[in-house]
């Protein structure tokens, strides 16, 4: 066994109303990847933040290479040898890519920043992740995936003893994940201790040497990967027995009941975003949108929902031509969209869980018809139960929820409007396995109740599991539409790859 680099003992962190971390011991060894697992709200991010000085800890010690460390800010943590990619992209939107990688560590000559050097370093750091892009671009102009890679490039650009990655792959596609893993393995082989948080079990089993499981802020245990089968891991995370988890897993896939068309597009086009697109969305059906990142899936969603304006083509709702000039129009027609980038496009961080949940419904009803408080409370209660949202109460600020639980509130916000057509852009990103199953079950239920659903998902297995029909996009155009028995992972992959290979 290799030598421990990062050792924590009895880490404790209380927030008003919750003990987010309760006397947790944790140890990361050099030359190993250590996965930190747990359900949404289990305390993974809190452990990381208590360690790196974002949150002052209430109790406990930490050591790096045997030296006690007690950082009071991320800056001090970095100086102590801990480099961190926090959950959600935490970069500066208005600065360039190069600057986001070098901020705070720019080399200077006579006090002047050497921009050339910064650009070279940024390019090199990105190249290690297999990414080549104009490093002078403003960060906010880059896709979420690129932003996530930039954050990782920044974290790997310094000499550190410990590298912490909190859900670094939530927005990456398979190729990018592979590049990242190559880099992580190389750093591991150089002797770094790596802490990895993810809800993708495949990734955890591909990368990790050891797993620590947290539940409700408490340590469940530390296990070598080889001795912890998946089912057992999930059972530990959920606090149930293996048999119970097994029983949860086997649920038959309900047959699709084909409904009438609700919304259809012909030749819908937007320059640089969507090439002429014909789509038909039917009641009681989940239409999956597959394709690589950047293939135009999000752009299609934005176009359907009236966030962007089409240049050409027509949209019909129940046979009548419609054109949505704004999301408000789309909402009035019974559409709903949960966006991909929840941090900047969905969360109202300074409002409570209740306010975040009712805001879309309130907008739909009209601003002057205040939803009665009793109804609001009932909605919150219903959805927290249905989706298993973990909060200390409806009046908790949403920004204090764990990332996965924020995602669930956003989903609830749109479900509360009782839409006819629901567009979900990566709805299960950052959500734990248990909750993911809950959400999939909920989707099936809504579908059977007659909702038309557009489901965007980068994970081909998840996509084919939940869709009755799949439209595959490539380079902003629909290249295939799969139905019936063609709705399976291999067919999706083949459709994505077909013309790329040719």
């Amino acid at each position, binding site marked *: 066994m290799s030598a421990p680099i990062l050792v924590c003992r009895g880490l404790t962190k209380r927030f008003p109303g919750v003990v987010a971390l309760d006397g947790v011991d944790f140890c990361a060894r050099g030359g190993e990847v250590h996965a930190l697992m747990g359900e949404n709200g289990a305390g993974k991010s809190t452990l990381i933040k208590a360690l790196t000085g974002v949150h002052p800890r209430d109790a406990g010690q930490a050591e790096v290479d045997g030296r006690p460390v007690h950082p009071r800010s991320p*800056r001090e943590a970095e100086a102590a040898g801990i480099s961190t990619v926090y959950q959600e992209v935490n970069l*500066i939107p208005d600065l360039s890519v190069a600057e986001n990688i070098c901020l705070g560590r720019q080399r200077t000559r006579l006090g002047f920043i050497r921009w050339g050097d910064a650009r070279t370093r940024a390019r090199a750091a990105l190249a290690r992740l297999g990414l080549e892009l104009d490093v002078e671009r403003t960060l906010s102009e880059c896709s979420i995936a690129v932003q996530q890679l930039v954050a990782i490039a920044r974290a790997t650009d310094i000499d550190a003893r410990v590298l912490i990655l909190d859900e670094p792959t939530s927005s990456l596609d398979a190729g990018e994940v592979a590049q990242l893993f190559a880099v992580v393995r190389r750093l591991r082989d150089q002797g770094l201790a790596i802490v990895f948080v993810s809800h993708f079990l495949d990734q955890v089993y591909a990368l990790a040497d050891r797993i620590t499981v947290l539940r409700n802020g408490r340590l469940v245990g530390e296990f070598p990967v080889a001795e912890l089968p998946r089912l057992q891991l999930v059972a530990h995370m959920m606090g149930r027995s293996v048999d119970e988890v097994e029983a949860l897993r086997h649920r038959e896939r309900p047959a699709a009941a084909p409904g009438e068309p609700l919304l259809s597009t012909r030749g819908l086009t937007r320059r640089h975003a969507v090439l002429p697109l014909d789509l038909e969305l039917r009641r009681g059906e989940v239409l999956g949108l597959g394709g690589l990142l950047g293939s135009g899936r999000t752009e299609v969603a934005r176009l359907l929902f009236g966030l962007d304006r089409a240049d050409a083509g027509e949209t019909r709702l129940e046979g009548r031509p419609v054109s949505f000039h704004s999301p408000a129009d789309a909402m009035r027609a019974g559409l709903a969209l949960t966006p991909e980038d929840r941090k900047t496009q969905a969360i109202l961080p300074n409002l409570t869980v209740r306010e975040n949940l009712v805001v879309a419904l309130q907008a739909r009803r009209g601003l002057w018809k205040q939803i009665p408080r009793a109804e609001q409370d009932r909605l919150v209660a219903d959805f927290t139960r249905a989706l298993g949202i973990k909060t200390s109460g409806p009046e908790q600020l949403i920004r204090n929820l764990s990332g996965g639980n924020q995602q669930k509130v956003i989903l609830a916000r749109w479900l509360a409007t009782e839409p006819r057509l629901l567009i979900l852009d990566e709805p299960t990103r950052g959500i734990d396995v248990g909750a993911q199953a809950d959400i999939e079950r909920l989707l099936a239920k809504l579908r059977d109740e007659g909702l038309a659903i557009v489901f965007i998902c980068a994970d081909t297995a998840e996509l084919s599991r939940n869709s009755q029909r799949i439209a595959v996009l490539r380079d902003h155009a629909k290249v295939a539409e799969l139905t019936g028995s063609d709705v399976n992972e291999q067919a999706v992959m083949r459709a994505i790859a077909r013309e790329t290979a040719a």
Partner: protein
Amino acid sequence: MNLAKFRPSARLWPVLASLGVLILLYAGGCLLFENFGSLRVLINLFGDNAFLGVAAVGATFVILSGGIDLSVGAVVAFTGVLIASLIGHGQPPLLAIGLALGFGAGFGALMGALIHLYALPPFLVTLGGMFLARGLAFVVHPESLSIDHPFYGEFISQTLSVPVSRRLAIPFTAFALIAVVLAGAALARWSRFGRNVLALGSSESSARLMGVPIGSTKILVYTLGGFLSALGGVVATFYMQSGNPASFVGLELDAIAAAVIGGTLLRGGVGYIPGTLVGVLILGLIQTLVIFQGTLNSWWTRIAVGGLLFVFIVLQQLTARRRVG
């Protein structure tokens, strides 16, 4: 820089637009009025607006950091009276100026510390600072006080000015303005502090997680703002040869307007120091035009500035909205 490769980013458009407005105003003035194009008008444009420009550079830094400084005008006025009064009491001018600058920096640091340590809104803290400095100015001396000292009479206005012809000289204040703008631009673009200020203004929570020293950056940026306000006050005494506690009311709003017209976003994180100079010159040119016109009420300056502000805010909103999918 490779000019062939030069393609202005969306963020630069507002600055280029205001540069265009500046050139149009100047060309328009030259066409409409005889003598408008003379060197004298140009030199006065810089000299007359130097104190505003210097203070506006400070205000721009504060805005870039995501804050606001409402105490600018009051600090400028206070500095002027303090200097006039100290010199009037027989103190050497350089000592008076040094004390005034020290006061400005200290005053800014105090406001910055309050904002940071108690997480107070900058608007309220600097509003308090405005009342405080204005009140203190009246305590120092209740009315206008002229400065009568060879250092001011000869050294600043003659020795330190650069003659271009027999009856025309570039005043020292114009050089001070250019120097402050260049130094400010370099600080914003090439120093770690400057970049930290922009990061802070763009996203404070991210900046913290990226290791930007939030507290010291915040305190320093208000210190710089206070210092440059005081320096603006010093430059104003060179120009007016007096100090007046009731003067420069609302100067902070001119400074903010100049920054915004110059392409700085009021929400912070985006902006250019040279843009602020352009903004100041536009304000100055509008005033000059109104004076040349002769019959217009001087309030037309305000009306024009107001209209221009609307145009630029809309322009910024439009360029900011552009999004790459």
